[in-house]
């Protein structure tokens, strides 16, 4: 538990030292979701109908782009080796790293999303569901993404490769997440979608760290 | 046999492009895969022969 806290604190400290990186993820999210009105035109009806999809895709891409950095720096400077040699369960340490990543890259996006939703003329209840769905879904994104990040360590071109590996696995989360918002937009209950999202996250929490740990061991060899 | 003539057969009731493209593509993939594998095998043998003779 001690090592777990150390890893978490270290990663948060590092993120704090490099605040601009955190800002970059947010900024990326902001830009991607603002590009669409530019590309598509300002019609509120159209914008609001595509909003759930666009916002969720933007959140997903923002999370993914920051993923490549999850283990890469640790790998390059050798601290990953030291983490593997710590007398603790690697899967546990992985959850600490993933949690830090989510706090730094996922949470800000969740908090920023309603602001952007306003620009897309989303009604209030849909905004609420948007925040909830992101809150439930983004942990799954981080957890699944960690597997991809671990598998592509030391592989050149890993930024795009990670996308190729991970995006297909993200699709259920995307569908349930965007579905929840769309449902509430159409006056239906988003409950079913939200529970499915939570289920995805739970499943990922149980399985992904194990897979990530195995992947790290393979990559470091 | 339900084809009046070879021409009718090739015409496929007006859907010739779609039908023959489908079957043709499949055949092409199969042939390409086999040829590519044979080439790959030969190349591998050639290289290990070079290594062996060294």
């Amino acid at each position, binding site marked *: 538990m001690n090592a777990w806290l150390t890893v978490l604190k270290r990663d948060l400290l590092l993120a704090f030292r490099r605040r601009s990186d955190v800002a970059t993820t947010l900024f990326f999210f902001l830009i991607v979701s603002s590009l669409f009105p530019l590309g598509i035109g300002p019609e509120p009806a159209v914008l609001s109908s595509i909003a759930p999809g666009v916002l969720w895709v933007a959140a997903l891409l923002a999370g993914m782009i920051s993923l490549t950095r999850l283990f890469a720096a640790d790998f390059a400077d050798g601290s990953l080796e030291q983490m593997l040699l710590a007398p603790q369960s690697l899967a546990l340490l992985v959850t600490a790293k993933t949690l830090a990543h989510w706090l730094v890259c996922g949470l800000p996006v969740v908090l920023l999303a309603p602001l952007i939703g306003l620009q897309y003329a989303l009604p209030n209840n849909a905004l609420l569901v948007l925040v909830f769905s992101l809150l439930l879904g983004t942990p799954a994104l981080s957890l699944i993404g960690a*597997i991809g990040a671990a598998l592509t360590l030391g*592989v050149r071109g890993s930024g795009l490769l990670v996308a*190729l*590996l991970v995006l*297909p696995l993200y699709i259920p989360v995307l569908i349930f997440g965007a579905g929840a918002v769309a449902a509430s937009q159409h006056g239906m209950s988003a409950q079913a979608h939200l529970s499915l999202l939570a289920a995805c996250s739970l499943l990922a929490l149980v399985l992904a760290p194990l897979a990530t740990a195995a992947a790290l061991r393979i990559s470091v060899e | 046999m*339900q084809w009046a003539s070879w021409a009718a057969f090739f015409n496929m009731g007006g859907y010739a492009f779609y039908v023959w493209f*489908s079957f043709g*593509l499949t055949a092409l*993939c199969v042939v390409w895969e086999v040829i590519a*594998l044979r080439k790959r095998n030969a190349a591998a043998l050639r290289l290990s022969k070079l290594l062996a003779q060294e």
Partner: protein
Amino acid sequence: MNINWFKYSSPQTFYPLAGKMIPWFAWLAAILAIAGLYISFAIAPTDFQQGEAYRIIFVHVPAAWMSMVIYIVMACWAGIGLALNARLSAMMAQALAPTGAVFTLIALVTGSLWGKPMWGTWWVWDARLTSELILLFLYLGFIALQASIDDPRKADRAGALLALVGAVNVPIIYFSVKWWSTLHQGSSINMGAAPKMAATMLLGMLIMALAFWMYTIAVALMRVRCIMLERERSADWVKELSLKSASRGKA
């Protein structure tokens, strides 16, 4: 029992064995394919709704079946390879992936070619089509990952892990996509409405599917032989083999 398994799981013994098996499967595939094609074009009657275009079904459906089956088989081999550290299993997984991807591509393209005359469009975002597309992405991810790792052992293990993760996800993806499109269901097109299949059609499809099976086995064996040669290029048995094959070529 055990001893046998280990004997045949070493590349050195499996290589010639595979060489002997390939012609059998290849011939079986050819014969079945000819029979299947005969049924598809000569015996199966014209469909009264779709005209002759429906004959695409005889490649489309078997290809779609194969694309899914191969993924499962591949994941099994990968899992065995990872669990038992068996090199041959990992190689089999690697050998299957490109063929699986090819069948997925065939299913997608022939489906599109069918869709254009039937639905009037090359593509709709229907559950089955979409999940087939995602399956293609999964294959490509597996292949790309293995291609970009240089140490073969590492590539094996990383690929195996990915295949397993994918296998866990495939059902989730499938159901989520299905649910997604039934909820939205804007378009009037519904592939489930395909006509009730006549017995000959079913037979034709089954025989074509069998032919594809045999073909897959033959090609996978060929590819696994290549992989063995490439990986063990400095091993003695490969060197001997290459010298022998060259002298046979000259004679």
